[in-house]
């Protein structure tokens, strides 16, 4: 298997681990961390394609920089949401945030 494929495989595995956490875990914080992990996996793809791709373009690296910046913002807002959830519901279990249930 070529290095690029290995990188992609690694990022897929990380993505799936994050996805599993998002789908399974009850804690809102862990769900957020899962999302972060999925973002990181995507970033790894960008870097891998930048490194092994046909070349001539540095946009991949720039994109990852932006992605990191936005992910930081996402983490801040997400955790603020968790704190707000905790204030209103006294728990951080995502199940508690079901005000929109039918």
């Amino acid at each position, binding site marked *: 298997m070529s290095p690029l494929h290995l990188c992609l495989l690694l990022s897929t595995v990380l993505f799936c681990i994050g996805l599993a956490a998002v789908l399974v875990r009850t804690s809102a914080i862990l769900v957020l961390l899962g999302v972060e*992990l999925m973002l990181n996996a995507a970033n790894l793809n960008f870097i891998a394609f930048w490194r092994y791709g046909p*070349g001539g373009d540095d946009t991949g690296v720039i994109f990852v920089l932006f992605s990191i910046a936005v992910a930081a*913002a996402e983490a801040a807002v997400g955790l603020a949401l968790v704190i707000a959830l905790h204030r209103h*519901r006294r728990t951080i279990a995502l199940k508690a945030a079901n005000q929109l249930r039918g």
Partner: protein
Amino acid sequence: MSLAFLALALVCVVTASAAMISRNLIHSALLLVLTWIGLAGLYLWAGADFVGFSQAIVYVGGVSMVVLFAVLLTRRQRDEPLVLIPEAGVGRVVAGLAATFWVAALLVPAMVVAPLVQRAGPGPTLTVKRIGELLAGPHLVAVLVVGVILTVSLIGALYLAAPVTAEDQPEWDNGGTGRDRGNQEEPS
């Protein structure tokens, strides 16, 4: 394929899995920090130094702090340092893992067999100066937009996390289920 890559990949996968399985939130966060460091190492290995260091600063220095803060602020009781999450129901676990498995079953073979154009030889070099020129040149608009997004999200996070007074409580917040009604009189 270098040994370094395999070692870093191993670190990433192991710590990430452990983080997602761990029942202790603090351990999860700290293990995930290791994953992030591993990813930063992978970026370094790929030759993207600047991205690697940025990843380390932002995630290890910033995001992890926020996560730890959130964990400490949302402890259920003041004198309960261990954060144990109530276990998910069996159905939930099974459904979630099944969904993940479906996605993985789709993605992994695709990743392995995809015919990709690849460059042979050493990877591209990218100096910090070049990154700066790219950011201040063709991507300037994106930089400005990200700046605005960061500002707005900072303000939004502040607004969300700022303590509310009793009058500010929304009308619908009359305490969901009985269990959640705990110590309502003590806003954190």
